[in-house]
């Protein structure tokens, strides 16, 4: 899993790239898009369960980033944390406005999944997880996605969600319990019957 834009070592790199962009460096824009967009899109996909809406949200969030680039204060927040926060908020707004549309099977699967059976199983697992995530309360869903799928640490999630680390731990733990309970009845379909 790529975490280029979200690991500690890259903290200053995103801010440096953003400063270069604000100074007119077009290549910096391309690099920033490549570093930030895939992770942001994956987050929005999991939050919304819809590719088109997820793309709209990420496009809107990045547009806000470009607009504020000349006034960016590196001491305020990490670029990636700020972007995640905007994506989470935009997704929450969008979910409140309308319920996500049901997705076709395999809507977000990579093409190189090994073998047809394995691919079908993989598709079923992702679809089941997405369905269970959609059923969680907003804050639990956000905490679980940010930690268990996006791979952020609890302090990073606390920054994104503007909560204490303890609150994040509690939300993520409750979310995971709810997912395990909700998905327990699908063991056979998900290939966990023998576990």
């Amino acid at each position: 899993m790529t975490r280029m834009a979200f690991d500690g070592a890259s903290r200053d790199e995103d801010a440096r790239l953003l400063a270069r962009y604000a100074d007119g460096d077009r290549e910096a824009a391309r690099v920033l898009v490549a570093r930030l967009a895939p992770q942001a899109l994956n987050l929005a996909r999991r939050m919304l369960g819809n590719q088109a809406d997820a793309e709209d949200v990420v496009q809107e969030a990045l547009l806000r980033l470009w607009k504020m680039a000349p006034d960016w204060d590196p001491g305020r927040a990490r670029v990636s944390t700020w972007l995640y926060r905007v994506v989470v908020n935009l997704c929450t707004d969008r979910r409140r406005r309308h319920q996500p549309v049901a997705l076709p099977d395999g809507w977000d699967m990579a093409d190189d999944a090994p073998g047809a059976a394995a691919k079908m199983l993989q598709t079923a697992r992702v679809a089941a997880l997405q369905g269970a995530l959609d059923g969680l309360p907003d804050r639990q869903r956000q905490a679980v996605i940010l930690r268990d799928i996006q791979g952020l640490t609890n302090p990073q999630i606390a920054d994104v969600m503007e909560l204490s680390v303890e609150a994040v731990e509690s939300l993520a733990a409750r979310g995971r319990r709810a997912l395990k309970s909700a998905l327990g009845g699908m063991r056979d379909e998900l290939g966990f019957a023998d576990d």
Partner: protein
Amino acid sequence: MNWGLPMTDRRKDLDDAALERLFSAARGSAPPPDAFMARLVGDALGELEAQQGARLSASRRTPARQPLWARLGDWILRGAVPTGLAASAVAGLWLGGWAETAGYFSEASVAASPLAQELSYRFPELAGLLGGY
């Protein structure tokens, strides 16, 4: 609590390892479509051009501030002409007053001088020229 999903027996809950495998499957999503990435880069470059255009127009509207030495030079040059005229007028008045007081000339001597006579003779002609007659 079941979040809209079928209620399951607690004993049949997924374990942590199985849940982690689901998360792992979700992490392996397809990469962003090329067209989408191109759209994002297009947005970034469009916004950059808009910002540069706005900065350019703002710099055209507001003339660049000159350095202090240049502003001081301008101020001195602008004040030199009126200051010089005023100083000349004051000096002329002072010299005239001093010469009259010292007895170098009088009202009558000025009136009788050839220059005064020439001026009085020529003045109507000059006035006519100036008036267009």
